[in-house]
């Protein structure tokens, strides 16, 4: 394994001018640090600036302002071919006129490696990505999954300082996506190459990454480990984008040890809170599966509501529950095996406060 490299973006902003003369801030004051050998994913809806950020790192775009540091050296204005990175594209972007072998060998030939070394390195890569026996084929004679493995091998064989991926699995069917993403993760860990991965697919981001960067409208919303992201989202946007969430207004009385004491519908609760939360009005975030429904027993349950819609999905049941003017999304996998509430039925509901999360707005 070679020495891994660290990457940092400091206040990187990219403003495009569209052909019509409109200005688009595709990356807006993006700052993040990526450790040696770390796998970081940029996640966000289409158009939020993921590709732009990745292309800024690759050097296909140059920032309007800000710095990009590779091992502490500013490379923001270094041409892409001098950055010693490698990119894997959604469209595979294999060289159609070259064989699989020559595609993979391309970067090594550029570096004028001796033929024996090229031969050895390419064979090794071919074995790693399970393509032995296909080296003399042209890209057009390969399946999508095979093509993307060639692209992966072509990028990895030069031992780049940083490996960049722009939605590399989006053109593949669902099954292949899952198996190839496991392969990517395995290879990256084995070779220890610092990687930045772009996707709009949260399952992909969660399963691949050491840390996930959630982006929205050119800005970084949150940088967290995948486990954090779901239970402790930094903003409403993240909570909504990563899974589904209910947002309810609460009043924060005081904060202590990362937990907030709040008043919610006349009840006092203590729930974990985001560091930005201060006393005063705030938002209670509840995941649909955190809410439990009970048969209505008049005054005995903490909160009451009425089922507006019931959707039976096989592995779970989804409800829409109206309560005090709010409409809650609730999922109950247990209901599959037990009682299913009917539309129009009155219910009581509750939740474990430690599974709720308080957001600042």
């Amino acid at each position, binding site marked *: 394994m070679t020495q891994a490299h660290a990457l940092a973006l*400091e*206040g*990187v*902003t990219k*403003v495009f*001018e569209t052909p019509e003369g409109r*200005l688009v*801030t595709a990356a*807006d*004051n993006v700052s993040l640090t990526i450790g040696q050998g770390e796998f970081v994913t940029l996640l966000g809806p289409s158009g939020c600036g993921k590709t732009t950020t990745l292309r800024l790192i*690759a050097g*296909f775009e*140059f920032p*309007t*302002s*800000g*710095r990009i540091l590779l091992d502490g050296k500013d490379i923001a*204005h270094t*041409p*892409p*071919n001098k950055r*010693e*990175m*490698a*990119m894997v*594209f*959604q*469209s595979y*972007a*294999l*060289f*159609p*006129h070259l064989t699989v072998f020559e595609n993979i060998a*391309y*970067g090594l030939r*550029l*570096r004028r490696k001796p033929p024996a070394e090229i031969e050895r390195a390419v064979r090794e890569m071919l074995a790693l990505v399970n393509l032995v026996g296909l080296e003399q084929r042209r890209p057009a004679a390969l399946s999508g999954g095979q093509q993307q493995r060639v*692209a992966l091998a*072509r*990028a990895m064989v*030069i031992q*780049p300082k940083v490996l*960049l991926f722009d939605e590399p699995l989006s053109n593949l069917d669902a099954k292949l996506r899952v198996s190839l993403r496991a392969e990517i993760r395995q290879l990256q860990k084995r070779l220890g190459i610092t990687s930045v991965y772009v996707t709009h697919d949260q399952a992909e981001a969660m399963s691949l990454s050491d840390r996930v960067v959630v982006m929205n409208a050119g800005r970084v919303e949150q940088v967290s480990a995948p486990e954090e992201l779901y239970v402790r989202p930094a903003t409403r946007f993240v909570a909504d984008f990563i899974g589904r969430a209910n947002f309810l207004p609460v009043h924060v009385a005081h904060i202590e040890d990362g937990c907030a004491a709040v008043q919610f519908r006349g009840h006092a609760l203590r729930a974990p809170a985001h560091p930005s939360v201060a006393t005063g009005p705030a938002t209670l975030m509840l995941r649909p599966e955190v809410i439990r429904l009970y048969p209505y027993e008049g005054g005995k349950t903490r909160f009451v509501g009425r089922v507006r819609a019931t959707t039976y999905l096989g592995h779970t049941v989804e409800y829409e529950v109206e309560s005090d003017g709010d409409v809650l999304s609730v999922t109950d996998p247990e209901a599959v095996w037990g009682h299913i509430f009917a539309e129009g039925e009155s219910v009581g509901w509750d939740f474990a406060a430690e599974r709720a999360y308080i957001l600042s707005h």
Partner: protein
Amino acid sequence: MALSGYGAFLNTMRSNHAVAPTPDALRPSTWRRALREYRALARDRALLLALIVATLFVLIAVTYPLGATLAEAASPEGIRVLSDVLRRPVYHRIILNTLVMGLTTAAIGTAVGFLFAYVRVKVAAPNWIKQLIHLTALVPVVSPPFAVAIAIIVLFGRSGFITHSLLGLRTDIYGLPGLTMAMVLSFFTVAYLNLAALMEGLDPALDEAAANIGANQWHIFRTVTLPLLLPGIVGSFLLLFVEALADLGNPLVLGGNYTVLATRLYLAIVGEYDITTGAVLSIILLVPSVLLYFVQLRLVARASVVTITGKPSGRAQRVRDRRVVIPLVGAALAITLLIVLIYLTILAGAFTISLGANNAFTLRNFEYVLLGYGAEAMLDTTGMSVIATLIAGLLSMVIAFLVVRGKFTGRNALDLGTMLGIAVPGTIFGIGYLLAFNSPTALFGIPLIPKLTGGAAVLGGALAIVMVYVIRSTPAGLRSGVAALQQIDPAIEEASVSIGADQATTFRRITLPLVRPALLTAMIYAFARSMTTVSAILFLTTPQTRIMTQQILNETEAGRFGNAFAYVVVLIAIVLIAIGILFALIGGRSGAAREVIPATSTRATLP
């Protein structure tokens, strides 16, 4: 530590700016943006070099001579000549002649092109007929423009083989009728290629839909086919009009007393040494030509966008009604026969002492061309064409790359400047080169360009001629290069760059192999065009550099048709051999063969 903290602070300040953009405060002024783009581009030396070479090429070889012509026409003397031209009836006559000739040629030429395209694509006819008319329509691409004109004189002139020997008539073929015939047969190929491509792109589902709702063939043609093809038809008409206006060879050989702008212009330069009148007439010719040329480019481009919409579905409906098929196929075959007859005449004429008068077999004509006086012209022309082909082939791909992939202000200007090389009639470049390069060019006392034309020119004027060859053939290559590059995923080139190749290496090892079919097209076109070009180089030949097309013209004017025909045959043979060689060298296994004929919407024929 403190310093990097300060840097971060500055960055925060700067990006805070961007968080709430006040658009105008952020918008870089145009020139500052342009400067930044060039700086970004200059990070790659090869890219910068390519841009500089391409820009210099357009500036020196295209715009400078045009500017010189404009300046001459706008000089006080030029203004005087212009008012003279606008006043004198003789010039009114010439302008009217030019318009009539242009309109007639454009109308008939487009009609013939449409007929050929329709029979080939839309009519149910035997395959051999379709192949025959297709190949026949392509012949003018590889032959010098006035080959047809000379054959027409021999066949239909005062002592013509058909009109006199067979029918006993004494016809006067000189003037509008003969001229129109020669021009139509020389130029209809572009209309045919444009329209055939558009018809093939028509979605067959449209036909089927119309047929399904019970429309009959004529109704389908009128309400579906024709409206969709209309921009293509208008575009072809304009292109042919511009071609006819620009043509010099045919009017010189067949015009007789029917003077048009191009011949008047030629006379002003060659007969009267009056370059000012030449420049003024050039401008009169230039304005409509350039305007209409770009209008037709737009029209044809729009037409192909409308017609070619993804994968064609369904099966095209062929016209089967005999009352329609027989007259259409008959007419197309009659014209095909005429073209075949014309080229057979050329071939026969090359081997006879004097076709019509003395039909004895001889090899003397070829002796003259291959071993005698013509040998030098043959070698000179071929050599210069080879050089021009290599330059134009590479240059057109480089410019196409800059235009399609480049991110810099002015790439549209580069495209446009290159296209001027063909949008402007060749004769005007002839005059422009005389005006610009007949004396050395200096800027602020620094000599920049040596004398390129006339006596004592650099390399006997060969440099100027090669430059003209290149500017005339690069536009077609540019268009096919642009079309090819637009088909290639830019990520493929980025992949190469991302793993360490610079732009030059990427261009050489990735882009060029991928656009090989377009390169082949560009080079075939460049060679054929250079070998057959007349109008642009008539003023530029010197005693040291002889050009085959000029020799053909000289022999024709001297009435030595046998020699002229032998020249034409040799010239066509050279072009065909060169195409074969280019195919062998570049064609390879790729799909190059399909794209031999110059891309639609470039001038495929030769003024």
